[in-house]
């Protein structure tokens, strides 16, 4: 592991070229991957995820049937069809009966094909929502962390002083706008001024507050989000936006944002007082450059670990929302939705809940194993030598 302090001193005397930076980070990543490969559970997690990815990508090839096609009236299928158990020729199912690896669901659709296609939905929701949450969350966290502790007189006030109206000018407009609203009698002018107050002054105050106290405003808002049980908040968001896969994805992402914001802020706080950052600042580097080129790469490890674990949680939450009828809408094959449709048939047709449940479990297990392994591999404090 390279000592950051030494690297900074080095950089001060002799600024690194891009190639040199790449070489340093490259070797760091190589070390991490080496550690990861030594971790057995992480390897198992990676294998599970790789298989799942392959299944999702090649779903049309792997699935034996159209996941939306009911088998009622199809050649070879007779009698009362729904909720048939598996028929596998290799395991003694009569050859004249059509083969269904996991049986049929309540609408007489091939369950195997539905579970296979379901992997597409679940992985898509998991990866997309976590990516979204990391992008938003870490940006907010970086800003909050970098701005933490700065005061008005601090030269590194993040947004600079010139953006917002300061001193008496701000208070003048905050007071004058509403006064005009009441004072002037003509309704058109009142309307314009009123809308102006709503669209300019109120957001102006909020913006000014955020600019003045970025850390406080961002982190307290994150605290508010964290105060809700995550699934409950997701349900509330979907209820407002309306049920559907996209809205569920958005809800899961929003719920996950504060976790990444906090992580990013904590990492930034631990990194930003380092000498190489002070040196950069002294050299007059743009704060965005400092943040994204110098701080972020040194603060990204916990985000990656949490992100991997977060995909598992997101898959689970997506399944939960779909189970409640707020996520994927019928007839979309989604594991949680399949579970929900067949929950009343646990005793009469247990295969209907067993296979999608198993699929959810394996997926979450895969991401959790990989996430744990990555934490061990990427944490420099755990020295394995």
């Amino acid at each position, binding site marked *: 592991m390279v000592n950051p302090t030494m690297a900074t001193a080095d950089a001060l005397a002799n600024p690194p070229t891009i190639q040199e930076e790449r070489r340093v980070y490259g070797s760091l990543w190589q070390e991490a991957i080496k550690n990861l490969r030594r971790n057995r559970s992480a390897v198992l997690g990676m294998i599970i995820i790789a298989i799942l990815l392959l299944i999702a990508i090649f779903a049309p090839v792997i699935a034996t049937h159209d996941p*939306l096609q*009911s088998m*009622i*009236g199809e050649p070879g299928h007779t009698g*009362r*069809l*729904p*909720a048939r158990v598996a028929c596998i020729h290799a395991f003694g199912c009569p050859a004249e009966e059509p083969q269904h690896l996991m049986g049929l669901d*309540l*609408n*007489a659709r091939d369950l195997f094909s539905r579970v296979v296609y379901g992997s597409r939905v679940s992985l898509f929701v998991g990866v997309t929502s976590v990516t979204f949450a990391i992008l938003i969350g870490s940006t907010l966290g970086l800003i909050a962390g970098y701005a933490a502790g700065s005061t008005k007189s601090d030269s590194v006030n993040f947004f600079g002083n010139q953006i917002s109206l300061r001193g008496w000018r701000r208070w003048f407009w905050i007071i004058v706008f509403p006064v005009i609203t009441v004072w002037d009698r003509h309704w058109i002018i009142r309307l314009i001024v009123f809308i102006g107050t709503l669209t300019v002054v109120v957001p102006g105050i909020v913006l000014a507050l955020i600019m003045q106290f970025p850390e406080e405003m961002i982190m307290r808002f994150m605290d508010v989000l964290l105060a809700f049980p995550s699934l409950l908040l997701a349900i509330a968001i979907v209820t407002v936006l309306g*049920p559907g896969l996209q809205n569920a994805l958005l809800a899961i992402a929003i719920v996950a944002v504060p976790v990444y914001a906090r992580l990013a802020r904590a990492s930034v706080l631990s990194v930003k007082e380092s000498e190489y950052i002070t040196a950069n600042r002294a050299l007059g580097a743009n704060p965005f450059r400092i943040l994204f080129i110098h701080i972020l790469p040194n603060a990204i490890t916990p985000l990656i670990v949490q992100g991997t674990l977060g995909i598992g949680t997101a898959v689970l939450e997506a399944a939960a929302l779909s189970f409640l*009828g707020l996520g994927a*809408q*019928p*007839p979309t094959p989604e594991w949680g939705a399949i579970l929900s*449709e067949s*929950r*009343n*048939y*646990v*005793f*009469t*047709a247990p295969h209907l809940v067993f296979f999608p449940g198993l699929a959810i479990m394996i997926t979450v297990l895969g991401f959790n194993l990989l996430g744990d392994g990555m934490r061990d591999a990427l944490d420099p404090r755990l020295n394995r030598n």
Partner: protein
Amino acid sequence: MKAVVRLLPLALLLVLALGIALPVAGQDDASEGGLTDNGGLLTYAATSCDYGGGFQSIEAVDELTVRFTLCTPDPAFPAKVAFTSFAILPSEYIESTGGTGDLVTAPIGTGPYMLENWELGSEIVLTRFEDYWGEPAIEPTMIFRWNAEATARLTELQAGTIDGIDNPGAGDFEVIASDPELALYEREGLNVFYLGINNTVEPFDNVKVRQALAYGIDRERIVENFYPPGSSVADQFMPTSIFGYTEEVEPFPYDPEMARQLLEEAAAEDGFELPIETTLSYRDVVRGYLPQPGVVAQDLQAQLAEIGVNVTIDLQESGTFIDNADQGNLSLHLLGWGADYTDATNFLDYHFGATASAQFGDKFPEITEPLAQGAQLADPEDRYPFYVEANTAVRDLVPMIPIAHGGSGTAFRADIEGAHSSPLGNEKFSVMEDPDDDNIIWMQNGEPAGLYCADESDGEALRVCEQITEALLSYETAGTAVEPGLAESWEASDDLMTWTFNLRPGVSFHDGSTLDANDVVMSYGVQWDAGSPLHVGRDGSFTYFAALFGGFLNAPEVTE
């Protein structure tokens, strides 16, 4: 002080002006009738039949005789009077509760069981009423519980913690039948499940589109695959065993080719694009007519996609769904109807009559006119042709597509004697005997919203009321025939407009008071007279009174 003196005349003037204006305003809103007291005998009467409802007057002739005078002949009157919503409650109790409050949570009736305790959210406990006029209940205690999940109900029954359940899951019928510990009682499908179409929503305003849907739905496939044994395909809205079913009216056959062709013609006429994009709303509530809501909705979605109608499935909360359906806010919806009494009027008039809700959009005179005529005749042979006409019009104009008459059932522990299922859903627990202990524990789908059943329409509430309260007449146990109830006998005038009921003497209520004709007048009157201060109920809709006997007296003016 000066100010007070100066303002005094003004205040006096104001009071005077109000005193003159208020009675005048009151006179504007002329009363359509009301309650009169005739030396201790009450009469509720309308000044004329112009108010639009079915009742002219309800009169306590003497202490044990009640006479109903109707505005139009009603052959189904005894069947309607026997319905749970028209149970007789003590008039003093209605008055002392103000028509709501305790009346809703602690009903007093004449039934074989009386309410002991309603543990909100968990159970309702009834105890035997020792002074019951008829055969007293066999078991001293009767308990209602509820669970929306069919599996959970069956699990409890199998475990023996309860004695009987309602509506076993469609897949569980065989499980119960093959279990020697349990007994299955199939319930005849006196109901209909239909796909409702709102004809005010484009493109369903075109009759060809509606007919295309009728041609495009394979009803046999749905009944065969998703309904329990004992169910049948619905050829028309009326179930086969209820008067009003007309076998000469043949349904549209399943013909997807025809459906696609009709859709193309309609698209060319009205200039809309195919495939049609629309919404199919339903509620995830298991009823006898729809044992597997989600599954059937998805199968219909797949079937409609075949003929070029892409539907988004829209699951709504039960109460919201019913409100939306009644207000005509839904384009396509899945709903059903179970018989309250066995007559065509309960099915056809309620849904397609002139006063029906906006569920299917605008009314068709081709349907409302024969229905209005048929409802006024007594002789089934005279009525029949009108129902042929109405059913034919319903088929051709397609306000909805009837799909199935769902068989359902109850299941009991095998050793419960007297266990049964009622085609009307009003199982009678007072005739059941549990040899193991001193109670009958019954688990149904849901908790009642209230127990003042004049203002309830949900079967879960009605079944509880059935045990506690009684109406003038009653339905036979496990059947639909009308029997004497609180009235020993009744007679109708030849024109079927005047009905006289002779009350059973010596019937006492759970609070000890004795049944008399005034109780009957009040029980009906507070439902009928929307202007009465006692016309309150739980939410004040009094759905069944409005549905079965036309409009309310002194109903607030509806400005449209």
